[in-house]
């Protein structure tokens, strides 16, 4: 469980996040949505500890991030998995080496054990015949799978995903969304996803936080988002005719 308590962040006096409080629950896919520039990425970076908040607290299982020393932060980071928007795979390493890397860095297992565990995860994310390929030689969807595999190989407590299905075709995007949700359930981890993909909202939004100009404007789940009368949310989520019609059908039912 991750708790954000009244967090604010500004850059050069310009407020980016304004007193945001929320709880990201364990075993759930928690989505942060909002327009570009609403503060989603800054919020995610604050949660990851890559940016320090100006005020407020971020608590991991009730342990405040700010009070953790370097060693405690290092331990916490080993409990985190992150899937980046551009996958951020190490381009000098093969797919298998990318996935083995965190284990080589932080476990005392031998190479055979590490390889075996990496291959279990590779199988789990349905990567076929890609072990010895370089990131440049695989498709965008496969890169995301490798990034997910690398993020979960250390059995993390927390999984963070920044726009996990951006740049993917709709079918692959849904497959990646479903994979993230399955992994969240299977490993019982706290997953936080930063997205503005409405398909993801409808498919896997077990908890959704809507940010508007750095403030939390709405909080709910994928069912509640159909019924909400919050104008900011409806303007954002149902901006396309397709989703307007989806909502109409849902509400008629």
């Amino acid at each position, binding site marked *: 469980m991750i708790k954000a308590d009244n967090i604010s962040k500004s850059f050069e006096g310009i407020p980016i996040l304004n007193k945001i409080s929320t709880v990201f629950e364990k075993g759930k896919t928690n989505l942060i949505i909002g327009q570009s520039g609403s503060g989603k990425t800054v919020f995610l970076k604050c949660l*990851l500890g*890559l940016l320090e908040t100006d005020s407020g607290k971020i608590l991991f299982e009730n342990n405040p991030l700010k009070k953790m020393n*370097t060693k405690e*932060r*290092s*331990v*916490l*980071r*080993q409990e*985190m998995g*992150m899937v*980046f*928007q*551009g996958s*951020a*795979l*190490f*381009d000098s390493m093969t797919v298998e080496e990318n996935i083995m890397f*965190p284990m*080589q*860095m*932080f476990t005392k297992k031998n190479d055979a054990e590490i390889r075996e565990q990496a291959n279990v995860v590779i199988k789990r994310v349905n990567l076929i015949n890609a072990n010895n390929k370089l990131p440049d030689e695989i498709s965008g969807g496969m890169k995301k799978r490798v990034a997910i595999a690398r993020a979960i190989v250390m059995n993390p407590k927390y999984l*963070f995903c920044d726009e996990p299905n951006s740049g993917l075709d709709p079918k692959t995007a849904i497959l990646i969304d479903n994979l993230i949700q399955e992994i969240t359930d299977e490993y019982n981890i706290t997953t936080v996803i930063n997205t503005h993909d409405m398909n993801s909202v409808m498919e896997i939004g077990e908890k959704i936080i809507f940010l508007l100009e750095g403030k939390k404007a709405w909080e709910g789940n994928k069912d509640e988002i159909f019924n909400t009368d919050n104008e900011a949310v409806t303007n954002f989520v149902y901006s396309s005719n397709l989703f307007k019609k989806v909502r109409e059908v849902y509400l008629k039912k």
Partner: protein
Amino acid sequence: MIQSVFGKFTKWKILKQLILKDVDTLIIGSMGIVSFISFFVGGVVSIQTALNLENPLLPKNLIGFATRQSVILEFAPTFISIIMAGKVGSYITSSIGTMRVTEQIDALEIMGINTYNYLIFPKIVSLSLYPLVICVSMFLGVFGGYIACVYGGFSTSADFIEGVQMDFVPFHVGYAFIKTIFFAFALATIPSYHGYYMTGGALDVGKASTVSFVWTSVVIILLNYLITQLLLT
């Protein structure tokens, strides 16, 4: 940054691989161009000296002497380092810069890795072998001078060798290697800094490489002046 480089250390097994990879790329990978440039510039220095010795009273062994002094004191340590600032420096900046823009450094940080140590320390260690490159450059520079001078008909082999051995001060070689060690540190750290702290996209990687080359060259030239002032005056 330097303090963090020597902070929390990466696992030795991984670090060893990174160091060997950097030795291969930065040191062994530079031998070809350094050898080529040293041999031919040594030759040109020797020819230029020979052509400027118009007075028949001046002994021909001065060609070997001047070539040795030019190559050992300045050409090999300083000018090869400027060339290396272009070759090795821009490689370091662009490789670290690309990792920055593609979020690979963020990925390492989130894993709890000391990215300064992981990325920069192996480069400092591998460039500690840089004096070997300069050693090769010194030898090939003088050898190139010998070939150009003797086979170009400017002096005899005996005269050139006599000149190379004439008034030899061993400390001059020591001075050249002391300079080289400082230059190696500049070659590893300045480009790493520009790569690590760059912001923007692919175009900015190119800009950062250029800026890094300029600053590394400036620092090498200033260090050269300071060390020469301290050690030779």
